[in-house]
C-alpha cells in the first residue's frame, strides 16, 4: 500500500506542510459514535475524537485500550513505600541512634504515617508526570488547532479526527468517506498553519 499512496504534496499546497489528519464535525454523540464505527470498519485505526463532554462508550468505539498509567502509579507508590521505610530505618536505627520515648530504634508503628504520605506523594507525582508523558505534554502547539472548526468542540461540535498513519495516508478518500458518514466541515488539517 505504501507505494501506491497518493502524494499529499501534489494535491495540497506545500506551504501548509505535511497533512496531519482529516477532521470532521458531527452534531450529536449518536452520529459521532456511528461514524467512528463506520470508519473503523474501513480499516482506519488511528482515530481521535474531541467532544464537549464525556461520551459513554466512546472508548470502546475508538478501540482505546485501558491506560497503562495505573501501573506507573503503582510503581510510584511502591517507590514511595521503599524510600520512606529505608529513610526512617537508616536514619533512626543505623546512622543516628536515639532512644525516643522508650520506643525501639525502628518500629513499623511509627513508620506507617510517613510511609503512607510518601507513598501518596510519589504515586501522585507518577500520576501527574506519567499522564503528561503519555499525552506527549507539555507541548507548545498541536496540529488539530489548525482545524477551522475546532473551537466548536468547546461548545456543540463533536470532532472526529482520522490521523495520518505513517506514510499511508489518502486524504481525499478519507474526506469522501467522512462526508458520506455525515460529517460537516470536513477538512484536511496540516501540521503547519
Amino acid at each position, binding site marked *: 500500500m505504501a507505494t501506491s499512496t497518493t502524494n499529499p504534496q501534489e494535491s495540497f499546497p506545500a506551504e501548509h506542510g505535511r497533512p496531519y489528519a482529516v477532521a470532521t464535525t458531527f452534531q450529536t*454523540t*449518536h452520529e459521532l459514535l456511528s461514524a467512528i464505527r463506520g470508519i473503523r470498519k474501513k480499516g482506519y485505526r488511528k482515530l481521535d475524537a474531541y467532544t464537549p463532554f*464525556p461520551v*459513554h*462508550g466512546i472508548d470502546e468505539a475508538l478501540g482505546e485500550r*485501558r491506560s497503562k498509567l*495505573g501501573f506507573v502509579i503503582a510503581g510510584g507508590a511502591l517507590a514511595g513505600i521503599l524510600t520512606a521505610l529505608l529513610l526512617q530505618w537508616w536514619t533512626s536505627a543505623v546512622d543516628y541512634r536515639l532512644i525516643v*520515648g*522508650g*520506643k525501639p530504634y525502628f518500629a513499623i*508503628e*511509627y513508620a*506507617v*504515617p510517613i510511609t503512607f504520605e510518601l507513598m501518596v506523594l510519589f504515586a501522585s507525582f507518577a500520576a501527574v508526570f506519567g499522564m503528561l508523558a503519555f499525552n506527549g505534554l507539555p507541548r507548545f502547539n498541536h496540529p488539530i488547532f489548525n482545524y477551522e472548526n475546532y473551537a466548536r468542540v468547546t461548545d456543540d461540535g463533536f470532532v472526529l479526527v482520522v490521523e495520518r498513519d505513517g506514510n499511508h495516508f489518502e486524504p481525499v478518500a478519507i474526506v469522501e468517506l467522512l462526508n458520506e458518514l455525515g460529517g460537516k466541515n470536513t477538512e484536511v488539517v496540516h501540521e503547519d498553519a
Partner: protein
Amino acid sequence: MAENASHSAQVYTGDAFRLSEAAYNKVRVILMGLAAVGWLLLIAGYFADHERFFRSYLLNYVYCVTFVVGALFFVMVEHASGATWSVVLRRISECIMMVIPIAALFFVPLLFDLHALYEWTHEAVVVKDPYLFEKAAYLNVPFFIARTVIYFAIWSFLAYKLWGWSTAQDTDRDFTYTAKSRRLSAFGLLLLTFTFSLAAVDWVMSLMPHWFSTMFGLYMYAGSATGFTGLLILIALAFRSNGILDRAITEEHYHDLGKWLYAFNIFWAYCAFSQYMLIWYGNLTEETIFFQHRFQGSWEYVSKALIFGHFLIPFALLVTLWAKRNLAVLGSMAALLVVMHYVDVYWLIMGSFYLDGVQFHWLDAAGLLALAPTFGLFFWMRLAKQHIVPVGDLRFERSLNFHQV
C-alpha cells in the same frame, strides 16, 4: 444511550420487579427453620450457661444490629449525595434498614441480666473503684437504658420517614419525596454518626469500663458500613443466581459496589490503625491494656487474622478494576468481609471477657443462628410486600442504564 433506554423499557414492564410467590415462600421457610433451631438452642443455652448466654447474645445482637444500621447509613448517603447508580439497590437496603424497630425489641433480653455483661452495673465494685465512681454519672443502668431507647427512637424515626416517602413515590412518582429524603438524610447522617458512636461506646466499649478510645465509635461505624456493603453484594449475587434483578443490577453496579466495599474497608483499617498507633505511641497503661490482652494467648492470632483478612487480603485483591467487575472475586471478598466483620465484633466483645485467649462456645453459634435468620426473616417479609426496586424514583431508569464513565 437512546437505544438502551428503549431496550430496557421493553424488558422491564408491569410487575416484573416483585418477588415471586415461590421464591418468597422458599426462602421464608428456610429462614423460619433456621431461626426455630437457633432459638431452641439459645433458650436451652440460657439454662445451660447463664453468663455465656448473655455474652453470646450480646455478641450476635451487636453483629446483626451493625448491618441494619449500616443499611440506614447507606440509604442516607445515597439520598444525601443524590446518587443515581445505586437507585436499583435502594429498596433492598431500605428493607434491611426497616429491621431497626424490630432490632430494638431484641435488645430487651439483655436487660434481664446486665450484671453478666457490664462491670459498671455492680454497685459494690463501682463504690470501691474511683474511676468507675467518676464515670457513674454516665455509666449507670437507668441512663444506659434511656440512651439505648433514644438511639433506637432516632434510627427508627429516620428509617420510617425515608421508607414512607420511598414507597409512596412508587405509586405517585412525586419528585418532592426525593427532595425531602435528601434534606432529612443530610441531617440524619450527622445524627446517626453521633448516636451510633455513642451506642458503640455504651454496648461494647463499656465492657472494658476503664479503657477508652475516642476512635472507637467511628471504628465500629466503619466496620458496619463495610459489613453491610459485603452483605448487600452477597444478596445481589444470590438474587442474580436465582434470576431476580439479574438484568437490573449489572456489572456496572457491582463495580461501584466494589469501590464502596473497598473504600469503607480502607476506612476501617484507617480507624483501626489510628486507634492502635496513638495508643502505642502514648504507651499509657490504661490505654495499652486493650491491645495487651488482644496480643496475648490465642487472641494474637485473631488480631493477625483481622490485619490480613479484614484489610491486607481484600485490599490487595480489590485494588484492580478487574477484581471489582469479576463477580466471583467480588463475591468472595464480600463474603470474607462479612465473616471478618464477625471476627472483629467477636474480638471486641469476647476479647473483653476472656482475657487469656479465645474460648469458643456453642452458644456463640446458637446466637447467630437465632438472630441472623430472624432479622433476615423480617427483611424478607417486608421485601415481598412491594416492588423490590424504587420504581417511582425519577432516577430509576437512569440507574438501570448506568455505565461507568
